[in-house]
């Protein structure tokens, strides 16, 4: 006999096996999901969920696909939350402090309550990366926010109206494009290909019968 627990999906009580995740518990209860379900593997942030366990005032946030149900769980899904994304031309912006002031000035209204960090479904230090973004320290902001799945729970808890995931994304794009060191070997290889350096070899390979390709493949040298 399966061990069952009682959960409250949007307040309504259902008895479900305790081995299920919140997402599979909803399906067990009869929900056919369209909203609030994406990759089902913890990468897309579609299934942001807020819950409280009966008798405990602590509010928790999680991804429904990555969280097992417990007895007395009150579940509210957050399939959409209005995040304010500002539009920019990545070719024209520069990794300077003023770009955050222009696009996301509300980050300077952070009151330091840390509700974002407490709510993060990925256990990131959200308030800290916002602080780095305020100071124009984009590389660290990028590093600290890297595992963000953009579920938006942080923003739902923010009294200053900050859209943390988009601030982080801007910091990361600035870092990837402008602050990370250039890869000389990549630039060189792109140029070599443009110059046709490999063209003759490639044409020869493409014309080879399968038997010859097999010979090449089975005897290739593998880098240690």
């Amino acid at each position: 006999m399966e061990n069952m627990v009682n959960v409250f999906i949007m307040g309504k009580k259902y008895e479900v096996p305790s081995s299920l995740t919140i997402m599979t518990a909803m399906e067990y209860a009869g929900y056919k999901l369209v909203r609030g379900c994406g990759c089902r593997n913890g990468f897309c942030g579609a299934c942001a969920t807020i819950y409280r366990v009966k008798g405990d005032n602590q509010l928790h946030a999680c991804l429904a696909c990555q969280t097992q149900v417990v007895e007395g769980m009150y579940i509210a899904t957050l399939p959409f939350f209005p995040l304010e994304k500002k539009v920019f031309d990545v070719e024209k912006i520069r990794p300077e402090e003023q770009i955050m002031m222009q696009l996301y000035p509300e980050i300077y209204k952070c009151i330091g309550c840390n509700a974002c960090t407490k709510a993060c479904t990925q256990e990131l230090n959200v308030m800290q990366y916002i602080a780095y973004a305020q100071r124009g320290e984009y590389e660290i902001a990028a590093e600290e926010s890297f595992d963000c799945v953009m579920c938006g729970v942080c923003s739902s808890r923010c009294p200053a109206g900050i859209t943390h995931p988009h601030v982080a994304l801007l910091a990361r794009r600035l870092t990837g494009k402008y602050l990370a060191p250039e890869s000389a070997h990549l630039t060189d290889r792109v140029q070599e290909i443009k110059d046709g350096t490999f063209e003759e070899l490639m044409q020869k390979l493409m014309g080879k019968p399968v038997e010859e390709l097999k010979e090449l493949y089975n005897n290739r040298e593998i880098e240690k």
Partner: protein
Amino acid sequence: MFTEEMLKSMKILEETRASRIGLEPRRMTAEEKEALLAKFHPDYIKEQFAELQVGPNKGDKVPLELADLLQAASRIEGMDIDLSAPDYETDVLIIGGGGAGASAAIEADNGGAKVMVVTKLRMGDANTMMAEGGIQAADKPNDSPAIHYVDAMGGGHFANKPELLYKLVTEAPDAIKWLNDLGVMFDKTEDGTMVTTHGGGTSRKRMHACRDYSGAEIMRVLRDEVLNRGIEVVDFTAAIELIKDDKGQVAGAVLQNMETGKLLVAKAKTVIIATGGAGRLHYQGFPTSNHYGATADGLIMGYRAGAKLLYADTLQYHPTGVAFPQQIFGALVTEKVRSIGAMLVNKDGEVFMNPLETRDVSAASIIRECKERGKGVDTGDGGQGIWLDTPMIEMIHGEGTIEKRIPAMMRMYGKYGIDIRKVPILIYPTLHYQNGGLEIGADGTTAIDNLYVAGEAVGGIHGRNRLMGNSLLDIIVFGRNAGRNAAKKAADISLGEMTLSHVADFAKEVEAAGLKGDIVSPKLLPDYVRK
């Protein structure tokens, strides 16, 4: 949480771990691989495939579940759809909001076309988002597109279409540069050198990564770029049938709002199918690492419109899906875990294969170890698994490596109280990738005028087995390619009168073949509601 058997076996692994460090297990010979695949790879189980009885691939074999959908009834059967007043009109219609669709949208926008993306869930709800390990490109001095070509050809059992593979490998470095210049944060050393590793079947270390969030990082940036450009994205709306014109060209699609059920008509000069894979069809009952909407919709719509499938009978089972705990059963454990040192070990602590064989060979070898040799570990609910010895990683590369290089894996297991730095994990193959799909030429077109395909919905790039890191690569290379060409083509197209007669004609063929049943397709979403 762990069973007695697991704990006992973990102890054996612990005792033998030091002896594995520095070990270089022998690779299988070509003959050994062939024999192994024939006996243990799911693609070789004949009764799991059916012969198609209608359509352009009549006589070819495809998985049973796919055959059912390809020869099913249309969702619009018997409906009278007014095509005279389209709800949307655009130059380029892109079906699918994953990496291929987004790349296509950006390039079509660069080409000056009016672009619209339609996606049945949200933009970015796609397998791209879940690709963990990395993206291949031959950009190191000891590597070349030619070596990449041979690796992929061999991995694909020499069935890859040469002109597609040529494009994939020669445009790979430029694809990486394009992403880098859009702001994707690749793992680099301080001097800018890309941190690259091996994938199964590669002969050079050419796997570029963004921690183990490679696909997520790429998808977040591409989506952001699509939004920055103001490209129209119609989400929670599925394409359910292609529309043609009276000249036989593709001219748009019938759409359906996923929430309200309302049908809509989109008219377009060119259409790009970028609908991705089919893991949620759960071929042969396998769990899957794919996203919720991976149901082969594009293959169904394309096939009904007359486009041909190539290698639709070959699927990729990723060797390392989660076997335990049950809550994340079938989820992907990135190949990168093996790239950075973890070995596959059976319940007696034996290394039974080189951990970096190609995926089909690795999956078959794991299945053999469990089914034939009885060396799997019971997962507690009827299944079996093989150990992936993750603690080896930090013995080789030092403490902190796992958190730095594979944080998503550490987090995923951590939620169930499993610290992968300390204990090994149980894995078993999971349905991961659709090797085959709709056939295209090097310009991204099908045999049907104005119809393009990009990404996982394409067949032929990877032959009969894809190498790790060549899929993130193909969505970029072929997504951009399709976007560019579809925009160019759209500039000089005049459409005739729109029609859905091909759908009715196909239905007649199905009926004539005596196949009429109660299945409708495309499937759009799997049904996981408890019955």
